[in-house]
Protein backbone atom coordinates (compact mmCIF):
# COMPACT_ATOMS: atom_id res chain seq x y z
CA UNK A 1 0.00 0.00 0.00
CA UNK A 2 1.35 3.37 -0.99
CA UNK A 3 1.58 6.43 1.21
CA UNK A 4 -1.38 8.82 0.71
CA UNK A 5 0.81 11.88 0.86
CA UNK A 6 3.90 11.25 -1.27
CA UNK A 7 2.37 8.33 -3.22
CA UNK A 8 5.77 6.76 -3.74
CA UNK A 9 6.85 4.95 -0.55
CA UNK A 10 5.16 2.01 1.15
CA UNK A 11 2.82 3.06 3.93
CA UNK A 12 3.82 1.86 7.39
CA UNK A 13 1.73 4.18 9.58
CA UNK A 14 -2.04 3.70 9.52
CA UNK A 15 -4.39 6.20 11.10
CA UNK A 16 -8.13 5.96 11.59
CA UNK A 17 -10.50 8.61 12.83
CA UNK A 18 -14.23 8.36 13.30
CA UNK A 19 -15.95 11.69 12.98
CA UNK A 20 -19.66 12.32 12.78
CA UNK A 21 -20.08 8.58 12.32
CA UNK A 22 -17.88 8.60 9.21
CA UNK A 23 -14.65 6.65 9.30
CA UNK A 24 -11.63 8.25 7.71
CA UNK A 25 -8.36 6.45 7.12
CA UNK A 26 -4.93 7.70 6.21
CA UNK A 27 -1.92 5.59 5.30
CA UNK A 28 1.50 7.16 5.54
CA UNK A 29 5.09 6.19 4.98
CA UNK A 30 7.73 6.66 7.65
CA UNK A 31 9.08 9.90 6.18
CA UNK A 32 5.70 11.56 5.63
CA UNK A 33 4.44 10.56 9.07
CA UNK A 34 7.48 12.28 10.53
CA UNK A 35 7.06 15.32 8.36
CA UNK A 36 3.38 15.63 9.24
CA UNK A 37 4.19 15.31 12.92
CA UNK A 38 2.29 12.06 13.43
CA UNK A 39 5.00 10.69 15.69
CA UNK A 40 4.93 13.82 17.73
CA UNK A 41 1.33 13.54 18.87
CA UNK A 42 1.30 16.77 20.82
CA UNK A 43 1.41 18.90 17.71
CA UNK A 44 -0.48 16.66 15.39
CA UNK A 45 -4.01 17.02 14.13
CA UNK A 46 -5.40 14.16 12.11
CA UNK A 47 -8.21 16.39 10.88
CA UNK A 48 -5.69 18.77 9.35
CA UNK A 49 -3.88 15.94 7.63
CA UNK A 50 -7.08 14.40 6.33
CA UNK A 51 -8.09 17.83 5.22
CA UNK A 52 -4.86 18.23 3.32
CA UNK A 53 -5.45 15.04 1.35
CA UNK A 54 -9.23 15.22 0.86
CA UNK A 55 -9.17 18.94 0.28
CA UNK A 56 -6.65 18.72 -2.48
CA UNK A 57 -8.86 16.33 -4.39
CA UNK A 58 -11.85 18.61 -4.00
CA UNK A 59 -10.00 21.65 -5.07
CA UNK A 60 -8.56 19.91 -8.10
CA UNK A 61 -12.02 20.17 -9.60
CA UNK A 62 -11.15 23.80 -10.18
CA UNK A 63 -8.64 24.74 -12.82
CA UNK A 64 -5.29 23.12 -12.09
CA UNK A 65 -3.37 26.16 -13.24
CA UNK A 66 -5.16 28.59 -10.94
CA UNK A 67 -2.78 30.77 -9.02
CA UNK A 68 -3.77 33.27 -6.36
CA UNK A 69 -3.17 36.75 -7.82
CA UNK A 70 -2.11 38.21 -4.47
CA UNK A 71 0.18 35.62 -2.90
CA UNK A 72 0.95 33.25 -5.78
CA UNK A 73 -0.41 30.23 -3.95
CA UNK A 74 -1.25 27.18 -6.11
CA UNK A 75 -3.28 23.97 -5.88
CA UNK A 76 -0.12 22.02 -5.28
CA UNK A 77 0.68 24.19 -2.28
CA UNK A 78 -2.76 23.54 -0.84
CA UNK A 79 -2.36 19.83 -1.42
CA UNK A 80 0.92 19.86 0.44
CA UNK A 81 -0.10 21.98 3.42
CA UNK A 82 -3.88 21.80 3.74
CA UNK A 83 -3.77 25.55 4.37
CA UNK A 84 -4.40 28.52 2.13
CA UNK A 85 -1.94 31.31 1.38
CA UNK A 86 -3.88 34.52 1.96
CA UNK A 87 -7.41 35.93 2.18
CA UNK A 88 -7.67 36.28 -1.62
CA UNK A 89 -7.07 32.52 -2.04
CA UNK A 90 -10.66 31.99 -0.90
CA UNK A 91 -11.84 33.88 -4.00
CA UNK A 92 -9.19 32.37 -6.29
CA UNK A 93 -10.09 28.79 -5.36
CA UNK A 94 -13.76 29.46 -4.60
CA UNK A 95 -15.04 26.78 -6.95
CA UNK A 96 -13.25 23.86 -5.33
CA UNK A 97 -13.48 25.21 -1.81
CA UNK A 98 -17.27 25.44 -1.87
CA UNK A 99 -17.97 21.72 -1.67
CA UNK A 100 -15.07 21.22 0.71
CA UNK A 101 -16.47 23.76 3.17
CA UNK A 102 -19.92 22.27 2.81
CA UNK A 103 -18.65 18.84 3.84
CA UNK A 104 -16.59 20.29 6.67
CA UNK A 105 -19.01 22.68 8.38
CA UNK A 106 -22.59 23.04 9.56
CA UNK A 107 -23.47 25.56 6.88
CA UNK A 108 -21.95 27.33 3.92
CA UNK A 109 -22.47 30.91 5.06
CA UNK A 110 -21.18 32.86 8.01
CA UNK A 111 -23.96 33.87 10.40
CA UNK A 112 -21.85 34.99 13.34
CA UNK A 113 -20.09 38.17 14.29
CA UNK A 114 -19.82 41.02 11.77
CA UNK A 115 -16.87 43.37 11.97
CA UNK A 116 -17.92 46.99 12.51
CA UNK A 117 -16.67 47.84 9.04
CA UNK A 118 -18.82 45.12 7.47
CA UNK A 119 -21.80 46.34 9.48
CA UNK A 120 -21.25 49.83 8.06
CA UNK A 121 -21.06 48.53 4.50
CA UNK A 122 -24.19 46.51 5.10
CA UNK A 123 -26.04 49.55 6.41
CA UNK A 124 -24.83 51.70 3.48
CA UNK A 125 -25.93 49.04 1.02
CA UNK A 126 -29.37 48.91 2.60
CA UNK A 127 -29.66 52.66 2.37
CA UNK A 128 -28.52 52.58 -1.26
CA UNK A 129 -31.25 50.07 -2.05
CA UNK A 130 -34.01 52.21 -0.59
CA UNK A 131 -32.64 55.38 -2.23
CA UNK A 132 -32.54 53.70 -5.65
CA UNK A 133 -36.07 52.47 -5.16
CA UNK A 134 -37.25 55.97 -4.16
CA UNK A 135 -35.48 57.46 -7.17
CA UNK A 136 -37.26 55.02 -9.46
CA UNK A 137 -40.62 55.98 -7.94
CA UNK A 138 -39.82 59.69 -8.18
CA UNK A 139 -38.91 59.41 -11.86
CA UNK A 140 -42.03 57.35 -12.51
CA UNK A 141 -44.24 59.99 -10.95
CA UNK A 142 -42.27 62.70 -12.78
CA UNK A 143 -41.29 64.31 -9.50
CA UNK A 144 -37.98 65.60 -10.88
CA UNK A 145 -37.10 67.86 -8.00
CA UNK A 146 -37.09 64.92 -5.54
CA UNK A 147 -35.33 62.75 -8.11
CA UNK A 148 -32.48 65.27 -8.41
CA UNK A 149 -31.88 65.43 -4.69
CA UNK A 150 -32.06 61.63 -4.45
CA UNK A 151 -29.49 61.33 -7.21
CA UNK A 152 -27.16 63.65 -5.28
CA UNK A 153 -27.60 61.52 -2.17
CA UNK A 154 -26.83 58.36 -4.12
CA UNK A 155 -23.66 59.92 -5.51
CA UNK A 156 -22.58 60.87 -2.01
CA UNK A 157 -23.28 57.33 -0.79
CA UNK A 158 -21.32 55.83 -3.68
CA UNK A 159 -18.19 57.72 -2.67
CA UNK A 160 -18.72 56.59 0.95
CA UNK A 161 -18.98 52.99 -0.19
CA UNK A 162 -15.84 53.10 -2.31
CA UNK A 163 -13.79 54.89 0.36
CA UNK A 164 -14.10 52.85 3.54
CA UNK A 165 -13.38 54.95 6.60
Amino acid at each position, binding site marked *: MLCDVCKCNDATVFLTQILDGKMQKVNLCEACSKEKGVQD*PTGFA*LADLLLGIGAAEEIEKGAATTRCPVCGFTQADFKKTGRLG*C*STCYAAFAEGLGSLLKA*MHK*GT*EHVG*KLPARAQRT*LALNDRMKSLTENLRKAVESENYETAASLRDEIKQLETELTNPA
Partner: protein
Amino acid sequence: MKFQSVITSTGEWLRGEGPHHQIVVSSRVRLARNLRNRAFPGWAKKAERLAILDLIKPRVEELPEMQDSFSEVLQDLSAVEKQVLVERHLISREHAAKSIGSAVVMNRKQRQAFKLVDKVDSALESRLDIAYDAKLGYLTACPTNVGTGMRASAMLHLPGLVLSELINQVIQAVNKIGLAVRGLYGEGTEAMGNLFQISNQTTLGEKEDEIIARLSKVIETIIEKEHDARQVLIQKKPNTLWDQIGRAYGVLTYAHAMTSKEALNLLSIVKLGIDLGTFPEDKRLPIDELFIETQPAHLQKGTQQKLNAEERDHLRAEIIRERLKTFPKPDMSKVAREPTSGNSEPAKHE
Protein backbone atom coordinates in the same frame (compact mmCIF):
# COMPACT_ATOMS: atom_id res chain seq x y z
CA MET B 1 4.73 41.13 34.48
CA LYS B 2 7.47 39.36 32.60
CA PHE B 3 8.02 35.83 31.43
CA GLN B 4 9.90 34.86 34.59
CA SER B 5 6.94 35.69 36.79
CA VAL B 6 4.73 33.47 34.67
CA ILE B 7 7.12 30.63 35.24
CA THR B 8 7.41 31.10 38.97
CA SER B 9 3.71 31.55 39.56
CA THR B 10 1.69 28.39 39.15
CA GLY B 11 -0.74 30.23 36.96
CA GLU B 12 -4.37 29.58 36.43
CA TRP B 13 -3.75 26.32 34.66
CA LEU B 14 -5.34 23.32 36.32
CA ARG B 15 -6.63 25.43 39.15
CA GLY B 16 -10.29 25.29 38.40
CA GLU B 17 -12.76 27.76 39.81
CA GLY B 18 -16.47 28.06 39.27
CA PRO B 19 -19.27 25.69 40.12
CA HIS B 20 -17.86 22.60 38.42
CA HIS B 21 -14.22 23.26 39.22
CA GLN B 22 -13.62 19.69 40.34
CA ILE B 23 -14.27 18.42 36.82
CA VAL B 24 -13.86 21.45 34.55
CA VAL B 25 -10.19 22.18 34.89
CA SER B 26 -10.05 25.07 32.45
CA SER B 27 -11.91 26.57 29.53
CA ARG B 28 -10.67 28.64 26.64
CA VAL B 29 -11.81 30.46 23.56
CA ARG B 30 -9.67 31.50 20.65
CA LEU B 31 -10.52 33.58 17.61
CA ALA B 32 -8.45 33.16 14.46
CA ARG B 33 -7.92 36.45 12.64
CA ASN B 34 -5.74 37.40 9.68
CA LEU B 35 -4.88 40.53 7.74
CA ARG B 36 -6.51 41.21 4.40
CA ASN B 37 -4.28 40.68 1.36
CA ARG B 38 -1.29 39.64 3.42
CA ALA B 39 0.03 36.08 3.33
CA PHE B 40 -1.27 33.85 6.12
CA PRO B 41 1.33 32.87 8.75
CA GLY B 42 2.19 29.46 7.25
CA TRP B 43 2.74 30.89 3.77
CA ALA B 44 4.37 34.22 4.62
CA LYS B 45 8.12 34.51 4.14
CA LYS B 46 10.21 35.36 7.15
CA ALA B 47 10.49 39.07 6.28
CA GLU B 48 6.75 39.41 5.82
CA ARG B 49 6.03 37.61 9.07
CA LEU B 50 8.34 39.99 10.89
CA ALA B 51 6.74 43.00 9.20
CA ILE B 52 3.27 41.81 10.17
CA LEU B 53 4.40 41.20 13.73
CA ASP B 54 5.75 44.77 13.89
CA LEU B 55 2.41 46.00 12.65
CA ILE B 56 0.24 43.97 15.01
CA LYS B 57 2.22 43.84 18.25
CA PRO B 58 1.98 47.53 19.25
CA ARG B 59 -1.71 47.63 18.32
CA VAL B 60 -2.45 44.71 20.59
CA GLU B 61 -0.29 46.06 23.40
CA GLU B 62 -1.98 49.48 23.42
CA LEU B 63 -5.45 48.05 24.06
CA PRO B 64 -6.88 48.84 27.50
CA GLU B 65 -7.97 45.20 27.82
CA MET B 66 -4.33 44.19 27.55
CA GLN B 67 -2.95 46.48 30.25
CA ASP B 68 -2.69 43.59 32.67
CA SER B 69 -0.77 41.55 30.12
CA PHE B 70 2.65 41.31 28.59
CA SER B 71 3.98 40.03 25.32
CA GLU B 72 7.13 38.20 24.32
CA VAL B 73 8.57 37.68 20.88
CA LEU B 74 8.89 33.90 20.60
CA GLN B 75 12.27 34.17 18.90
CA ASP B 76 13.68 35.63 22.10
CA LEU B 77 12.63 32.66 24.21
CA SER B 78 14.71 29.51 24.71
CA ALA B 79 13.47 26.08 23.65
CA VAL B 80 12.70 25.20 27.27
CA GLU B 81 10.79 28.43 27.82
CA LYS B 82 8.70 27.77 24.73
CA GLN B 83 8.03 24.24 25.94
CA VAL B 84 6.89 25.68 29.27
CA LEU B 85 4.31 27.73 27.34
CA VAL B 86 3.21 24.58 25.49
CA GLU B 87 2.82 22.72 28.80
CA ARG B 88 0.68 25.58 30.08
CA HIS B 89 -1.43 25.42 26.92
CA LEU B 90 -0.63 29.03 26.13
CA ILE B 91 0.77 28.18 22.70
CA SER B 92 0.53 25.08 20.53
CA ARG B 93 3.45 22.84 19.69
CA GLU B 94 3.20 24.05 16.10
CA HIS B 95 3.33 27.66 17.20
CA ALA B 96 6.45 26.95 19.26
CA ALA B 97 8.18 25.27 16.33
CA LYS B 98 7.53 28.01 13.77
CA SER B 99 8.40 30.81 16.06
CA ILE B 100 10.01 33.38 13.79
CA GLY B 101 7.81 36.42 13.46
CA SER B 102 5.30 35.59 16.14
CA ALA B 103 4.69 36.61 19.68
CA VAL B 104 2.68 35.43 22.60
CA VAL B 105 0.53 37.78 24.63
CA MET B 106 -0.51 36.71 28.06
CA ASN B 107 -3.24 38.06 30.19
CA ARG B 108 -3.06 37.28 33.85
CA LYS B 109 -6.66 36.45 34.48
CA GLN B 110 -9.08 35.31 31.87
CA ARG B 111 -12.53 34.82 33.24
CA GLN B 112 -15.43 34.85 30.87
CA ALA B 113 -13.06 34.04 28.07
CA PHE B 114 -15.37 34.77 25.17
CA LYS B 115 -16.46 38.22 26.36
CA LEU B 116 -12.86 39.34 26.75
CA VAL B 117 -11.57 37.93 23.49
CA ASP B 118 -14.60 39.34 21.64
CA LYS B 119 -13.93 42.79 23.08
CA VAL B 120 -10.26 42.64 22.12
CA ASP B 121 -11.23 41.46 18.64
CA SER B 122 -13.64 44.36 18.13
CA ALA B 123 -11.02 46.83 19.31
CA LEU B 124 -8.38 45.40 16.96
CA GLU B 125 -10.73 45.59 14.00
CA SER B 126 -10.60 49.38 14.02
CA ARG B 127 -6.79 49.31 14.08
CA LEU B 128 -6.07 46.56 11.56
CA ASP B 129 -7.45 45.50 8.20
CA ILE B 130 -8.87 42.09 9.12
CA ALA B 131 -9.57 39.51 6.39
CA TYR B 132 -13.33 39.15 6.25
CA ASP B 133 -15.73 38.02 3.57
CA ALA B 134 -19.45 38.80 3.59
CA LYS B 135 -20.34 35.19 2.79
CA LEU B 136 -17.59 33.17 4.47
CA GLY B 137 -16.93 35.38 7.48
CA TYR B 138 -13.44 35.60 8.92
CA LEU B 139 -10.90 34.09 6.54
CA THR B 140 -8.29 31.77 7.98
CA ALA B 141 -5.33 29.79 6.66
CA CYS B 142 -7.00 26.50 7.48
CA PRO B 143 -10.49 26.08 5.97
CA THR B 144 -11.54 24.24 9.14
CA ASN B 145 -11.51 27.59 10.99
CA VAL B 146 -13.25 29.82 8.47
CA GLY B 147 -16.43 31.64 9.53
CA THR B 148 -16.34 32.57 13.17
CA GLY B 149 -12.69 31.54 13.46
CA MET B 150 -13.68 30.47 16.94
CA ARG B 151 -12.53 27.41 18.79
CA ALA B 152 -14.01 27.05 22.26
CA SER B 153 -12.88 24.23 24.48
CA ALA B 154 -12.95 22.92 27.99
CA MET B 155 -10.50 20.61 29.72
CA LEU B 156 -12.35 18.00 31.74
CA HIS B 157 -11.00 15.65 34.41
CA LEU B 158 -12.90 12.39 33.98
CA PRO B 159 -11.34 9.61 36.09
CA GLY B 160 -14.75 8.15 36.99
CA LEU B 161 -15.69 7.55 33.36
CA VAL B 162 -12.23 6.12 32.62
CA LEU B 163 -12.22 3.76 35.64
CA SER B 164 -15.70 2.49 34.81
CA GLU B 165 -14.69 2.07 31.14
CA LEU B 166 -17.47 4.30 29.89
CA ILE B 167 -15.20 6.92 28.40
CA ASN B 168 -15.09 5.50 24.88
CA GLN B 169 -18.87 5.54 24.72
CA VAL B 170 -18.86 9.18 25.75
CA ILE B 171 -16.15 10.08 23.23
CA GLN B 172 -18.05 8.37 20.42
CA ALA B 173 -21.28 10.13 21.34
CA VAL B 174 -19.54 13.50 21.46
CA ASN B 175 -17.85 12.89 18.11
CA LYS B 176 -21.17 12.02 16.55
CA ILE B 177 -22.58 15.46 17.26
CA GLY B 178 -19.66 17.25 15.64
CA LEU B 179 -17.55 18.07 18.67
CA ALA B 180 -13.96 16.97 19.02
CA VAL B 181 -12.43 15.14 21.99
CA ARG B 182 -8.70 15.28 22.43
CA GLY B 183 -6.16 14.21 24.99
CA LEU B 184 -4.20 16.58 27.17
CA TYR B 185 -1.94 17.89 24.43
CA GLY B 186 -4.20 17.79 21.43
CA GLU B 187 -5.32 15.28 18.89
CA GLY B 188 -3.80 11.82 18.75
CA THR B 189 -2.55 11.92 22.31
CA GLU B 190 -3.86 9.34 24.70
CA ALA B 191 -5.59 11.03 27.55
CA MET B 192 -2.91 11.35 30.16
CA GLY B 193 -4.08 12.12 33.66
CA ASN B 194 -7.67 11.34 32.61
CA LEU B 195 -7.81 14.85 31.12
CA PHE B 196 -9.90 15.39 28.01
CA GLN B 197 -10.37 18.47 25.88
CA ILE B 198 -13.77 18.97 24.30
CA SER B 199 -14.05 21.56 21.55
CA ASN B 200 -16.21 22.61 18.62
CA GLN B 201 -15.18 21.13 15.29
CA THR B 202 -17.13 23.40 12.95
CA THR B 203 -16.90 27.17 12.63
CA LEU B 204 -19.10 28.05 9.65
CA GLY B 205 -22.89 28.31 9.57
CA GLU B 206 -23.47 28.79 13.27
CA LYS B 207 -23.30 31.84 15.54
CA GLU B 208 -20.62 32.12 18.20
CA ASP B 209 -23.08 31.93 21.09
CA GLU B 210 -24.86 28.97 19.49
CA ILE B 211 -21.57 27.09 19.27
CA ILE B 212 -20.77 27.90 22.89
CA ALA B 213 -24.28 26.93 24.01
CA ARG B 214 -24.06 23.60 22.20
CA LEU B 215 -20.66 22.91 23.72
CA SER B 216 -21.80 23.93 27.21
CA LYS B 217 -24.79 21.64 27.04
CA VAL B 218 -22.64 18.66 26.09
CA ILE B 219 -20.15 19.49 28.82
CA GLU B 220 -22.95 19.69 31.42
CA THR B 221 -24.09 16.23 30.34
CA ILE B 222 -20.58 14.82 30.57
CA ILE B 223 -20.19 16.32 34.06
CA GLU B 224 -23.40 14.60 35.10
CA LYS B 225 -22.19 11.28 33.66
CA GLU B 226 -18.88 11.66 35.49
CA HIS B 227 -20.70 12.23 38.80
CA ASP B 228 -22.92 9.22 38.14
CA ALA B 229 -19.92 7.05 37.27
CA ARG B 230 -18.21 8.05 40.52
CA GLN B 231 -21.29 7.21 42.58
CA VAL B 232 -21.64 3.85 40.86
CA LEU B 233 -17.99 3.09 41.60
CA ILE B 234 -18.43 4.03 45.28
CA GLN B 235 -21.53 1.92 45.64
CA LYS B 236 -20.80 -1.06 43.40
CA LYS B 237 -17.03 -1.32 43.20
CA PRO B 238 -15.69 0.34 46.34
CA ASN B 239 -12.77 -2.10 46.64
CA THR B 240 -11.53 -1.33 43.13
CA LEU B 241 -11.81 2.40 43.79
CA TRP B 242 -10.04 2.30 47.19
CA ASP B 243 -7.37 0.05 45.70
CA GLN B 244 -6.70 2.59 42.94
CA ILE B 245 -6.55 5.52 45.36
CA GLY B 246 -4.40 3.61 47.85
CA ARG B 247 -1.96 2.50 45.16
CA ALA B 248 -1.70 5.97 43.67
CA TYR B 249 -1.00 7.40 47.11
CA GLY B 250 1.54 4.68 47.86
CA VAL B 251 3.49 4.99 44.64
CA LEU B 252 3.53 8.79 44.68
CA THR B 253 4.68 8.81 48.31
CA TYR B 254 7.50 6.27 47.93
CA ALA B 255 8.64 6.07 44.31
CA HIS B 256 12.12 7.30 43.35
CA ALA B 257 11.69 7.43 39.60
CA MET B 258 8.61 8.47 37.72
CA THR B 259 7.80 9.38 34.11
CA SER B 260 5.53 12.37 33.51
CA LYS B 261 2.85 10.08 32.14
CA GLU B 262 2.82 7.91 35.28
CA ALA B 263 2.85 11.00 37.46
CA LEU B 264 -0.15 12.52 35.66
CA ASN B 265 -2.13 9.29 35.86
CA LEU B 266 -1.46 8.81 39.57
CA LEU B 267 -2.01 12.46 40.45
CA SER B 268 -5.34 12.22 38.65
CA ILE B 269 -6.42 9.39 40.97
CA VAL B 270 -5.34 11.35 44.04
CA LYS B 271 -7.27 14.35 42.71
CA LEU B 272 -10.29 12.05 42.44
CA GLY B 273 -9.62 11.03 46.06
CA ILE B 274 -9.78 14.69 47.09
CA ASP B 275 -13.04 15.18 45.17
CA LEU B 276 -14.51 12.18 46.97
CA GLY B 277 -13.28 13.24 50.40
CA THR B 278 -10.62 10.58 51.07
CA PHE B 279 -8.05 13.39 51.39
CA PRO B 280 -8.72 16.78 52.99
CA GLU B 281 -9.81 19.63 50.69
CA ASP B 282 -6.77 21.77 51.56
CA LYS B 283 -4.58 19.23 49.71
CA ARG B 284 -6.21 20.12 46.39
CA LEU B 285 -3.89 22.99 45.53
CA PRO B 286 -0.61 21.12 46.13
CA ILE B 287 -1.85 18.29 43.89
CA ASP B 288 -3.08 20.63 41.15
CA GLU B 289 0.29 22.36 41.19
CA LEU B 290 2.11 19.05 40.80
CA PHE B 291 0.20 18.38 37.57
CA ILE B 292 2.02 21.27 35.95
CA GLU B 293 5.28 21.35 37.91
CA THR B 294 6.15 17.77 36.99
CA GLN B 295 5.91 18.39 33.22
CA PRO B 296 9.32 18.00 31.53
CA ALA B 297 10.00 21.65 30.63
CA HIS B 298 8.77 22.91 34.00
CA LEU B 299 11.17 20.52 35.77
CA GLN B 300 13.98 21.66 33.52
CA LYS B 301 13.17 25.32 34.08
CA GLY B 302 12.98 24.80 37.83
CA THR B 303 16.51 23.42 38.11
CA GLN B 304 18.17 25.76 35.60
CA GLN B 305 20.31 22.89 34.33
CA LYS B 306 20.03 20.40 31.53
CA LEU B 307 18.62 17.06 32.68
CA ASN B 308 18.32 13.83 30.75
CA ALA B 309 15.14 11.75 30.91
CA GLU B 310 16.42 9.56 33.73
CA GLU B 311 17.48 12.53 35.82
CA ARG B 312 14.11 14.15 35.23
CA ASP B 313 12.31 11.00 36.40
CA HIS B 314 14.31 11.05 39.65
CA LEU B 315 13.79 14.74 40.21
CA ARG B 316 10.06 14.40 39.48
CA ALA B 317 9.69 11.59 42.03
CA GLU B 318 11.66 13.63 44.58
CA ILE B 319 9.45 16.71 44.18
CA ILE B 320 6.31 14.60 44.51
CA ARG B 321 7.61 12.70 47.58
CA GLU B 322 8.50 16.00 49.23
CA ARG B 323 5.04 17.43 48.55
CA LEU B 324 3.27 14.33 49.82
CA LYS B 325 5.21 14.23 53.08
CA THR B 326 2.50 16.21 54.84
CA PHE B 327 -0.29 14.23 53.20
CA PRO B 328 -2.48 12.17 55.54
CA LYS B 329 -3.25 8.57 54.58
CA PRO B 330 -6.40 8.12 52.50
CA ASP B 331 -9.48 7.89 54.70
CA MET B 332 -12.23 5.99 52.90
CA SER B 333 -14.76 6.53 55.71
CA LYS B 334 -15.13 10.23 54.78
CA VAL B 335 -16.56 9.58 51.36
CA ALA B 336 -19.91 11.12 50.54
CA ARG B 337 -22.15 8.41 49.24
CA GLU B 338 -24.96 10.60 48.03
CA PRO B 339 -24.65 12.84 44.98
CA THR B 340 -21.38 14.70 45.46
CA SER B 341 -21.44 18.29 46.61
CA GLY B 342 -20.83 19.90 43.21
CA ASN B 343 -23.86 18.17 41.73
CA SER B 344 -26.61 19.65 43.89
CA GLU B 345 -27.66 22.44 41.57
CA PRO B 346 -27.11 22.75 37.86
CA ALA B 347 -24.95 25.83 37.45
CA LYS B 348 -23.56 27.47 34.38
CA HIS B 349 -19.90 27.54 33.56
CA GLU B 350 -18.22 30.05 31.41
